[in-house]
């Protein structure tokens, strides 16, 4: 049933949709909480705003077992190589959410000490603004990422389909 490259055919599209569905419904985040945003990330995982309903309460400490890296907090110059190494240790497919103003753009700290936006170090799929973003904002960001994956727009963090 395989058609041409841009029309893969009925069977493969359904398979792709199924694979995307499984990927989004059980995405395991790697613990990369750095600063204040980490506290709000923990709040999103706690009972009041439960991240487990999206299949994501299992924060894996080892990046090798994680799909999603939520960069929560300000990334300093000393931490940037560590961030890159953790990202490299994750297996494909992997996604990155940049949580908070400091991770997205350097936030209010436009100075020598911070990397002005974590997208200078790793490719980012979803940016969640806020200082810190409340749990609802983070959940909105996660759901946006899920929608993007489901629609086939991104299959892994490099954004290449």
């Amino acid at each position: 049933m395989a058609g041409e490259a841009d029309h893969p055919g009925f069977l493969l599209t359904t398979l792709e949709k199924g694979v995307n569905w499984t990927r989004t419904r059980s995405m395991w985040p790697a613990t990369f909480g750095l600063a204040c945003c980490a506290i709000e990330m923990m709040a999103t995982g706690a009972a009041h705003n439960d991240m487990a309903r999206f299949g994501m309460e299992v924060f894996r400490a080892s990046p090798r077992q994680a799909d999603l890296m939520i960069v929560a907090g300000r990334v300093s110059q000393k931490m940037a190589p560590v961030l890159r190494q953790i990202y490299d240790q994750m297996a494909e497919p992997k996604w990155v959410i940049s949580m908070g103003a400091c991770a997205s753009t350097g936030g209010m700290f436009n100075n020598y000490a911070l990397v002005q936006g974590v997208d200078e170090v790793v490719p980012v799929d979803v940016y969640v603004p806020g200082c810190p973003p409340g749990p609802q904002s983070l959940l909105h960001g996660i759901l946006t990422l899920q929608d993007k994956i489901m629609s086939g727009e991104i299959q892994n963090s490099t954004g290449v389909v």
Partner: protein
Amino acid sequence: MTDESQIDAVIPAASTVAEAVESAELSTFTPRGGQTYVIIDVSRDDYPSLVRAALDAGYETFIDLCAVDHLAREPRFDVVVNLVSTQHGERLRIKVGVPNDDPELATITSIYAGSNFYERETWDMFGIVFEGHPDLTRLLMPDEWEGHPLRKDFRIGAIPVEFKATR
């Protein structure tokens, strides 16, 4: 307030500290709604003996060591040590001037073990070398960083914010 009798009445321990060293100059500061505390200015040479005298006089809790860059003043840097005596319920602040052409000061890690990290941070941020410190390496900045960020002639490093055109 430099009335000796007033100072003696309020803070006896601090005045014994200042008497231990020749070049020490005592002044006091009364914060709004708080109690008076003592600031002792001392020269670089007498600084270790003054700190030792402070420890002996009962200021046994080490609180803080930091530096201030005055830039246009000579000596350029001020190293400020904050101590607390929990027995007397008093604070003591010791200030030492450190010049720019010779930014060195004796370490007090043998007197207060807690000054270790503070002196490292002061070296990292200001470039003031603490002689005798066991491990004077970068603490907050990466190891290979050049420059001392909190000096006034080190720019904040802000990048201009550009609004990229939407694709």
